[in-house]
């Protein structure tokens, strides 16, 4: 242990980087002060290396260093206390010491260890005389004070080392800043660039010199100012710690690119917001790919519809014998062609449906609906199919009111129940229920089919994922049904999941918003676009929302709302009678503001 400690001590000494450095006034003055204070001919500020004692500062006729074994100080560094030897001739440890019997004829020694900040005793401050001395407690205290001053100087050395290390580290990070392919910016509280890296300069096409001092908004696409400004303001005000946003930037030549910015806040020593750090990635290629993909899906989908309609129509007429009775084999081929065309039509329709749902291009128009209304409409669609398959459908519903778009939810239920019927054995039962579950409605579709393996319970909601690849052919599904159901449920701020014990059937569950359960927010604005934005923001926050285009409609809908969110200001008095009014300023960052308002409501 002792050996290990000595290695650590030597490492601490090395890290001071002081051994064999030239004399320094800050240490010399301590040695002189000690000599005068204690009236001694010899004083040392020394460091104890592995095999030698090296004198950083020295008063008196001594060499620059002494072999460690010959020193008094080797004992001093053993303990935190000072070592005091009033008369070497009376101390059997030192009476025959070479430095006592020979030069410099030490009779008196008082030494105090010097420690690093980590507590390693790396050196000593000592005072030496050639005649015996009395060294009382007051003098010990003085020696202690003086050694503290020496320690401070030693540790200042450490500070300058730390500074050098910091400089190295700063250089490394600067190199990263300079060389990375990601654009980096530092922006001050006024929204002006303080520093940009070459990657950002290159993206924007403005030199770093010209960018410094320029407002961020000068290179931000005007169409994105409204979404960029509030986020930046909230960050630099210290209200948020960071944000991610996709926004367009413009170059001096008028061209633009899509950037994904990740911004965070740099605080000063007092913890106050100082600078915003932005990392900007050029995502124009990704945006373009997304656009092309969406367009492709949409164009191909619509272009496929027209010829498919003709094919299906022609085959239907042929199969029905409208153009004359077909011979047996020809009739069979026509039937196969017609059935597969039906599947293709379904696939195209569902692909377009899903595409529109996922991009929020489908209007969800929730209103208060009774479960029976949903179940009746669903039964009308699925009952014939269930009869055909010999599967019984049973229904149950609590007395409650949901806040959903009935058309969409019926579409989802039809998908779920048809799916359950498809995988159910004949003469079994598919049970659908709608019940209250706290502040939400819980919809369950239970079948007695073969079930779903545990590792597939989540994957089945992805596109073209079926438990068994052969299902798609056998069961005639498109592989899109459950993905559509999930998209619909998510548009209602709901959740969907499957539970199953393989061999014992599966249960699909959906949560949907209840009307008047102390969660629903009414949204009112005369402007359609603004109204939709507000509604989306509330739903993203996870609350059901219902939109109104006039105060009259809102008043007519009556109570049941937690609050009314408004952006337009007219008719406020009427609205306030219905529920507390939360106002959103048109200039604000909508999503953040809605989050704040709703969080305030939840506290």
């Amino acid at each position, binding site marked *: 242990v002792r050996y290990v400690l000595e290695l650590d001590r030597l490492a601490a000494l090395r890290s001071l980087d002081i051994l064999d450095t030239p004399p320094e006034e800050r240490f010399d003055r301590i040695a002189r002060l000690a000599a005068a204070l204690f009236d001694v001919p010899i004083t040392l500020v020394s460091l104890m290396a592995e095999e030698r004692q090296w004198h950083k500062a020295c008063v008196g006729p001594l060499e620059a260093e002494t072999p460690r074994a010959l020193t008094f100080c080797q004992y001093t560094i053993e303990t935190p206390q000072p070592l005091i030897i009033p008369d070497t001739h009376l101390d059997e440890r030192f009476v025959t010491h070479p430095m006592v019997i020979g030069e410099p004829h030490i009779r008196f020694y008082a030494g105090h260890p010097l420690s690093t900040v980590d507590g390693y005793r790396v050196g000593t401050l000592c005072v030496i005389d050639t005649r015996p001395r009395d060294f009382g407690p007051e003098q010990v205290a003085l020696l202690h004070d003086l050694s503290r001053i020496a320690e401070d100087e030693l540790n200042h050395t450490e500070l300058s080392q730390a500074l050098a290390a910091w400089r190295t580290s700063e250089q490394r990070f600067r190199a990263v800043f300079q060389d990375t392919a990601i654009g980096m910016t530092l922006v001050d509280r006024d929204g002006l660039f303080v520093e940009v890296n070459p990657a950002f300069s290159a993206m924007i096409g403005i030199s770093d010199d010209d960018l410094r001092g320029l407002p961020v908004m000068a290179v931000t696409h005007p169409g994105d100012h409204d979404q960029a400004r509030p986020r930046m303001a909230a960050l630099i005000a210290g209200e948020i710690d960071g944000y991610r946003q996709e926004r367009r930037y413009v170059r001096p030549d008028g061209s633009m690119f899509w950037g994904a910015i990740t911004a965070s806040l740099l605080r000063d020593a007092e913890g106050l917001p100082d600078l915003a750090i932005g990392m900007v990635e050029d995502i124009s290629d990704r945006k373009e790919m997304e656009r092309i993909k969406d367009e492709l899906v949409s164009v191909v989908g619509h272009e496929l519809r027209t010829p498919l309609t*003709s094919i*299906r*129509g022609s085959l*239907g*007429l042929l199969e029905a014998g*409208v*153009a004359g009775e077909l011979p047996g084999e020809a009739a069979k081929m026509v039937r196969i062609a017609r059935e597969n065309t039906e599947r293709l039509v379904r696939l195209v329709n569902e692909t377009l449906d899903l595409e529109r749902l996922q991009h929020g291009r489908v209007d969800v128009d929730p209103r208060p609906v009774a479960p029976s209304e949903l179940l009746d409409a669903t039964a009308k669609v699925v009952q014939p199919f269930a009869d055909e398959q010999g599967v019984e459908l049973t229904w149950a519903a609590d007395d409650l009111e949901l806040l959903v778009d009935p058309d969409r939810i019926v579409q989802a239920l039809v998908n779920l129940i048809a799916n359950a019927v498809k995988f159910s054995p004949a003469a079994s039962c598919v049970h659908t229920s709608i019940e209250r579950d706290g502040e939400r409605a819980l919809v369950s579709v239970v079948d007695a089919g073969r079930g779903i393996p545990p590792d597939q319970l989540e994957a089945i909601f992805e596109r073209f994922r079926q438990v068994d690849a052969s299902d798609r052919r056998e069961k005639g599904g498109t592989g899109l049904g459950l993905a559509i159901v999930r998209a619909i449920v998510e548009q209602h701020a709901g959740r969907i999941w499957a539970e199953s014990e393989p061999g014992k059937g599966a249960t699909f569950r959906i949560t949907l918003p209840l009307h008047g359960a102390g969660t629903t927010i009414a949204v009112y604005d005369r402007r359609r676009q603004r109204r939709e934005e507000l509604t989306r923001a509330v739903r993203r926050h996870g609350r059901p929302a219902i939109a109104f285009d006039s105060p009259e409609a809102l008043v007519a809908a009556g109570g049941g709302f937690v609050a009314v969110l408004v952006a337009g200001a007219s008719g406020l008095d009427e609205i306030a009678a219905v529920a507390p009014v939360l106002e959103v300023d048109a200039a604000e960052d909508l999503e953040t503001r809605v989050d704040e308002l709703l969080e305030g409501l939840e506290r």
Partner: protein
Amino acid sequence: MRLLLIDDEPDIRAIATLALERIGGWTVVGAGSADEALAAASGETPDIVLLDVMMPGLDGPATLERLRPVLGVQVPVVFLTAKAQPGDVERLMALGAAGVIAKPFDPLRLSSEVDAVIGRSSR
């Protein structure tokens, strides 16, 4: 009974013609544009007109405007449209249509849909 069918898609015209003639017993005259329709209507007046809404050049409503003076007010006109939301239907009915049939139609049921619109009993 003569039926004037106006649709710019020749395939759709062929399918609808077959279905209406063989299943419904209509005599179908096809037209691919407003001009063709005007020519056909000014010959022998049809008993009913099926008119596609979305056509290049003159669309369904514009075609109806040209056609009405030739047809007179008595001849029922039924629109065929891919956009058959309640609002769309209302707008088309306001133009003086006798009815609206949604596209894509099932050719096997087209004839009975036409019958239903004009109140003719199925044969």
